[in-house]
């Protein structure tokens, strides 16, 4: 396995820089929200991690289709990479949301449609890894993973639309929200700058982690093939 390509090294550096700028914009540049105080700053990374989380789950569903069509193991590696990174980011989204909810809703957790669907998405993809581990044959595992991510991807738009379709206390910052929503606010220009920059930065960070994880997946596959050869 070759060392990192210059393109990936450059992307690593750019990602660190973008994360630093996004953190500066969220914590210092954006003004303190009057009603919620500093905890509102969690919102910038909460939405950005949710965005890349959902992006990865959809990407996994798409690569699942490609794998079923081509039966090429490299698409299984791409699919696993997308799910793993999204699982990490979506976990952060849920935890950040819970931390924000404590002072604003006066509770860490409530079985609101958005929170419930988000928790289901996380559990679906957590189960994906647990179930994959139980299948030894790489081709069977690949087929199973592809079908699973394809079906799992349906949960993503349901979660995204839940705050727009159902009665919910979860705020919708962009677009119209439920009359029962609590904790919504209007963004000023510096807030919008921090928000959209975080979305951009996390998209680049996602691509960087995705590339790194695919490299790891290729190495895993190489070692697995060598082990199978030795055992035969």
């Amino acid at each position: 396995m070759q060392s990192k390509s210059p393109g990936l090294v450059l992307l690593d550096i750019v990602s660190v820089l973008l994360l630093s700028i996004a953190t500066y914009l969220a914590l210092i540049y954006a003004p303190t929200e009057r009603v919620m105080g500093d905890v509102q700053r969690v919102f910038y990374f909460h939405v950005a991690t949710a965005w890349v989380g959902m992006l990865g789950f959809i990407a996994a569903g798409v690569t699942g289709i490609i794998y079923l069509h081509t039966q090429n193991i490299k698409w299984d590696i791409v699919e696993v990479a997308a799910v793993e990174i999204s699982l990490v980011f979506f976990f952060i989204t849920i935890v950040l949301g819970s931390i924000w909810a404590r002072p604003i809703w006066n509770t860490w957790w409530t079985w609101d449609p958005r929170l419930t669907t988000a928790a289901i998405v996380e559990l679906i993809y957590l189960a994906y890894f647990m179930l994959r581990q139980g299948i030894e044959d790489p081709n069977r595992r690949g087929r199973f993973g592809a079908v699973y991510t394809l079906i799992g991807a349906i949960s993503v738009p349901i979660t995204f639309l839940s705050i727009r379709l159902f009665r919910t206390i979860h705020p919708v910052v962009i677009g119209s929200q439920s009359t029962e929503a609590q904790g919504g606010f209007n963004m000023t220009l510096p807030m919008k700058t921090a928000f959209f920059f975080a979305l951009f930065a996390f998209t680049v960070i996602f691509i960087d982690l995705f590339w790194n994880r695919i490299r790891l997946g290729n190495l895993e596959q190489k070692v697995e093939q060598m082990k199978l050869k030795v055992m035969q």
Partner: protein
Amino acid sequence: MISTEVTPNTSVYMIAGYAIFFGVIIIYLISLLLRWNILKRDIPILEGMEKQESIAEN
């Protein structure tokens, strides 16, 4: 009219949120690095076993 509304001090929650974010990201990066190093360490061992097997077959 004088506003009596005071912005609440919720800094602790903000700090907790960002600490968890960076903590989880750092743990994930360490896990990627560890898995990479373990796999790299396995390759020469497996190559050696492959060579031994081919010698034994011949």
